[in-house]
């Protein structure tokens, strides 16, 4: 059972690079246990928004609240403490290339826990096994395939049993089957870890397979057009652009309000 409790609040957020505004006036909430999709056409600022959520880029205006606590207005030290509860899967994995898979998974554990090395090693093996990479502990990222790198990066992201998992284009560059398995893995992790998951993607199959809530960002008006469950937006959104996107450009104008 999901308890409908607000986990992340995006409040009046504007993001810009210098004078160039990417998105403005974003206002939405993400509930605990959600698989929340941030979607929109290419170049609409999805990844920039994700960077703000995970602390890599400061917003021009507004704030993000995790469990009601301000992320950007509180002192730096508090932000560092919140970062510990995040897990991030970057678009290309961003595994540390000079470390083996086990060392990659181990670094977060070594930074935030006092576990003895043998135990760290056990946890790493467990996390790698969870993503189907048992036995690959001593491989370097350059020695495995792209799909495996993504899964290894996922193992690193869940090393500390995060409360919130961020995914940047998880299925980009993966074949349909690998991408489908990754989707299953995401849902499995949500259920077993009880984590809230935020995914940036424009892969429709994934959006409908895993997302239970979403926001649609528009590159033209530079703001959000709709928020809600993706299926509902596809069939009943009052906004044509949103329906058209979710129906792969085959929406008709007829029920446009």
């Amino acid at each position, binding site marked *: 059972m999901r308890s409908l409790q607000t986990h992340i609040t995006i409040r009046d957020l504007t993001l810009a690079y210098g004078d160039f505004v990417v998105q403005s006036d974003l206002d939405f909430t993400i509930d605990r246990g959600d698989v929340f999709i941030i979607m929109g056409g290419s170049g609409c600022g999805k990844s920039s928004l994700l960077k703000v959520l*995970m*602390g*890599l880029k400061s917003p021009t205006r507004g704030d993000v609240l995790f469990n009601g606590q301000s992320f950007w207005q509180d002192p730096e030290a508090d932000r*560092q403490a919140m*970062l*510990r509860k*995040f897990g*991030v899967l*970057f*678009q*290309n994995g*961003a*595994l*540390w*290339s*000079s470390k083996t898979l086990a060392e990659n998974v181990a*670094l*977060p554990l070594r*930074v935030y826990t006092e576990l003895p090395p043998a135990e760290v090693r056990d946890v790493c093996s467990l996390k790698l096994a969870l993503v189907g990479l048992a036995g690959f502990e001593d491989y370097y990222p350059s020695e495995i395939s792209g799909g495996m790198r993504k899964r290894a990066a996922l193992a*690193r992201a869940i090393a500390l049993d995060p409360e919130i998992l961020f995914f940047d284009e998880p299925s980009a560059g993966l074949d349909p089957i690998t991408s489908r398995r990754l989707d299953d893995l995401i849902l499995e992790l949500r259920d077993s870890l009880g984590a809230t998951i935020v995914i940036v993607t424009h892969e429709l199959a994934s959006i409908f397979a895993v997302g239970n809530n979403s926001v649609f960002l528009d590159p033209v008006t530079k703001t959000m057009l709709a928020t809600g469950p993706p299926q509902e937006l596809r069939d009943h959104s009052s906004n044509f652009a949103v329906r058209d996107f979710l129906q792969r450009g085959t929406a008709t104008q007829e029920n446009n309000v």
Partner: protein
Amino acid sequence: MMSLDSRPTTSPQQTAEVTSAAVDETSFLLTLRGEWLLESERPRVADLLTELDSIAGCERIAFDTTKLGAWDSGLVTYLVEIEREARERDIAVDHTGLPDGARRLVELAFAVPERQGARREERRQGLMSRIGNSTLEAVRAAQDWVRFVGELTLSFGRLLRGKATYERSDFFATVQEVSVEALGIVSLVGFLVGVILSFIGAVQFESFGAGIYTANLVGLGIVRELGPIMAGIIMAGRTGASFAAHIGTMKVNEEIDALQTLGIDPIDYLVMPRALALMLMMPLITLYADLMGIIGGTVVSVAILDITPVLFVEQLREAIGIGDVLGGLFMASVFGVLVALAGCQRGIECGTSAQAVGEATTSAVVTSIVAIVASCSVLNFIYTALDI
């Protein structure tokens, strides 16, 4: 090797022709003939436009392509340009006479309107604005440096308080890279610089019978200045460049972002161990370079001057004071910090493309060498003032 521009065209020169004729007062028929290929000699749109503009009241353009031979993008670029110019002049273009494929390509080119503000305009800048821009650029670069040095100082504080996250293995890997792995080149360069210095000294001093003073020149020259500078420049080329390329590639690969989302400060984690290793190892490697240089100098002096090795070494001992050695070693430590700073700073500030990594590496080496020479001058000035 053949450059892309100098590739010979595969087919002999072909020609494309266009003739225009007025059908009535408001419409205009373009007849396209010949081979409209990229490599053929094609008419320019500008010529056609001058003709069009000379006829007042042209409202419609049509095409006749019954005599058109083979065509490719050569034709389509021509048509697209006509279409664009025609739209500006409110002239309708009738595509029905065109080959089917060409017509569809032209329509495709105009199907998505150009995004406002997407086109990058190349504006020519005046002298003043260029001076202004490069001044701002220089100020920004200086600010970046100051910020970086400040961050490094804070990071050193965290290290002392045991709050920094770093890998001991990074520190030792750098130690190994700048010591054992660099010994070969340091030996060679050190020895040869000693040889060169000794040749210069021997020839000059010999001419007024003071050949023994070659020992003073070689000893002081190497220990005070050339030893540290040699070691510094070798480290700039070897290690500084490798820092910049390594950290720059991590940046391209989002590995630095991955560190930051873990709450790990990249300065603590990547820069500090490298800078410390270089700072600590530079005096040692310099001492070794000094030794090599002196050996080189001794060998040559003994060979070309009428001096015994014992006498030469005795003269050396008299010439070099402990202050000279320590001054040189301190200088080496400063160079170590500068090389590490330049390498890591360029890596961290690196852009996110393959070219940016190359530029970061070049710039790391250039910055290091300039910093080494500049700080060497400053330190010499201070040493002289303090009478060291």
